[in-house]
């Protein structure tokens, strides 16, 4: 089965539509959405509505820290993120807020675990940014493959025979075999706010039969998305980020 892995959409509708179109072209059979549907971006209601439709037709949607923050005004966040959440909250319908509040933190399927951030404490939203944090996440599960987001930079970690963690910086469009006798942690890049220097929307495709993961990018009109951020009156920093990918 071909799974489309997407994460950190952050209310960026243009980026989301570009990724969904690419997933369609790549014959993705099911979409796994790893959380952070809202926050930072200008189109929260449209993105959540789209996700509700996708969820109704089989997509799996998980909760991220920004989705949680909609229902929890005291959430621990930096100023820009908090300002964006406060801007977002009144712009969501009751149905959307309800949808976000009910999203699960994790999903286990066969030997795969899906989660927004570090799997050792899913509700604490720790970042997996290096081999030490990847080790903590991998040690907390027996899943052969853990898939998460939250970091906005694509990464791959492997838990080896000698209980060490190897980091691999994935190249785009290369199918990477996930040897079944190793355990793996894949960090999926962000759809709506990449931070690895490449402004194109990030996602990945997992072929569960071939046990191969391919990291991908979908180019989209980031200038238009940045204009929408400005028009919404959100912090300028959030517009610039979309253009530079940092």
């Amino acid at each position: 089965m071909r799974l489309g892995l997407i994460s950190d959409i952050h209310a960026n509708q243009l980026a989301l539509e570009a990724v969904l179109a690419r997933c369609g072209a790549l014959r993705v059979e099911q979409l796994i959405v790893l959380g952070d549907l809202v926050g930072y971006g200008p189109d929260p209601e449209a993105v959540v509505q789209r996700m509700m439709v996708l969820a109704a037709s089989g997509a799996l949607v998980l909760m991220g820290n920004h989705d949680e923050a909609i229902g929890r005004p005291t959430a621990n966040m930096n100023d820009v993120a908090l300002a964006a959440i406060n801007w977002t909250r009144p712009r969501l319908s009751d149905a959307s807020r309800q949808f976000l509040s009910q999203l699960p933190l994790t999903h286990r399927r066969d030997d795969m675990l899906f989660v927004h951030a570090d799997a050792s404490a899913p509700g604490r939203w720790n970042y997996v940014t290096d081999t030490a944090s990847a080790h903590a996440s991998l040690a907390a599960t027996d899943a052969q493959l853990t898939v998460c987001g939250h970091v906005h930079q694509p990464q791959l970690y492997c838990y080896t025979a000698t209980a060490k963690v190897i980091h691999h910086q994935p190249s785009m469009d290369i199918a990477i075999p996930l040897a079944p006798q190793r355990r793996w942690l894949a960090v999926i890049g962000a759809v709506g706010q990449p931070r690895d220097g490449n402004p194109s929307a990030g996602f990945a495709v997992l072929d569960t039969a071939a046990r191969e993961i391919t990291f991908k990018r979908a180019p989209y009109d980031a200038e238009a998305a940045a204009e929408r951020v400005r028009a919404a009156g959100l912090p300028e920093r959030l517009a610039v980020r979309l253009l530079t990918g940092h």
Partner: protein
Amino acid sequence: MAKTRLESGSTLDGFIIGDLVHRGGMAHLWQVSRPGDATQMLMKIPVLHEGEDPAAIVSFEMEQMIMPRLKGPHVPRHIANGDFATQPYIVMERLDGETLLPQLDALPLPAETVARLGAKIADALAALHAQGVVHLDLKPSNIMFRPNGDAVLIDFGLAHHRDLPDLMQEEFRLPYGTAPYMAPEQVMGVRNDYRSDLFALGCLMYFFATGTRPFGDPQKLKGLKQRLWQDPVPPRKLQPDIPPWFQEIVLRCLEVRAGRRHPSAAQLAHDLRNPDQVTLTARAGKLTQDGFFAVLKRKGEPPSSLIDKPQADEAELSDAPIVAVALNLDDLTPELSDKLRRTASRILERSPQARLACLNVQKLNRIAMDSSLDEEGNNKHVQRLVGLKDWAQGLKLEQGRITFHVLEAIDPAETILDYARQNNVDHILMGARENSTMRKILGSVSGKVAAEAPCSVTVVRNRQLTEE
């Protein structure tokens, strides 16, 4: 891990097991076949013992990942992988003939023979490196040849693939490789420098031409590290009839700093095929090892300061291209000559490791094929070399970055194409024929080259002035 008992005549995943053809320490090789498939096939089965060095497993996993991704005549064609859950195996094309190992009985071989062999192996390395793979275990027993002479590299159990997770990377404390051929940076744990394979090829050529291994066969890490500070006995000291150009090439391969070796396998192959174009340095004339104090000084340095750590972008070969410029000296206007030079200069400035081969095709007369040997023919040859050198003078390239070749042929386009194929040329630069009447009669050489070249082609033409 379930183990299937293999024996001749049994079947595994549709493969009929034939004879056991090789029983090695790391793996066994079985001849296998498949109904309705005439391909000669080998099945490689790892020898795995519980509780033993996990390196054997990891190395087999890496080979299972890398082999299906390799293409071309310089590797055995991959056919199938067997799952670790049942019986791990790799099925691949079976090659006829032997590895280079039996040749060890015949050493030393003449330097010219070793250079021809080395050029073939360097071609295979160039093809492998172009696919983002460093072999890291190049040695006689891992090299075979196809009937047409192409070298084939086998055993990718220690290889590194640029785009795949390197499971060998941080797994083990000791460096993995084969002691006599391991590059100094590999001894220090660096696994992503393609120039490590050039060092190994240098060891092989040294061994084949002298009958002596340049760094012996040390069995301990301490002995392996010795190559970081102790240079080998110069080959010509061991075999006085070895020509200086051969020693120059081999000792350049054996430089401790990867940055001082040839910038690519293709450039090494080019040197091995063009001995008269090799720039001789102090390496060529060296007859003794470095003195006691020089070695002592190096020994006092931290080992990591003696090697070059590869930069991320250095792993890419695109920065060390071979550029061939084909000059038609009989039909070269000053304007076109200048424009070609400026275009070449721009390409070379962007790639400081690039190398330029200046070609001129001397057209042979179909009737008087043998006249090229006479006095007049020789004069013509020299005149053309002078012409090429004159053209290149304005580029102000240092020696070693530029070579000159006068080729003789009936069909110039085919000759340029052959040169590009044989020398792994990355970019051909040539002028368009100025005279359109000539082009009509003779056809366009650049058109044919551009259409059939195995690489990029830039055809340089002066802007045509439109008539008012």
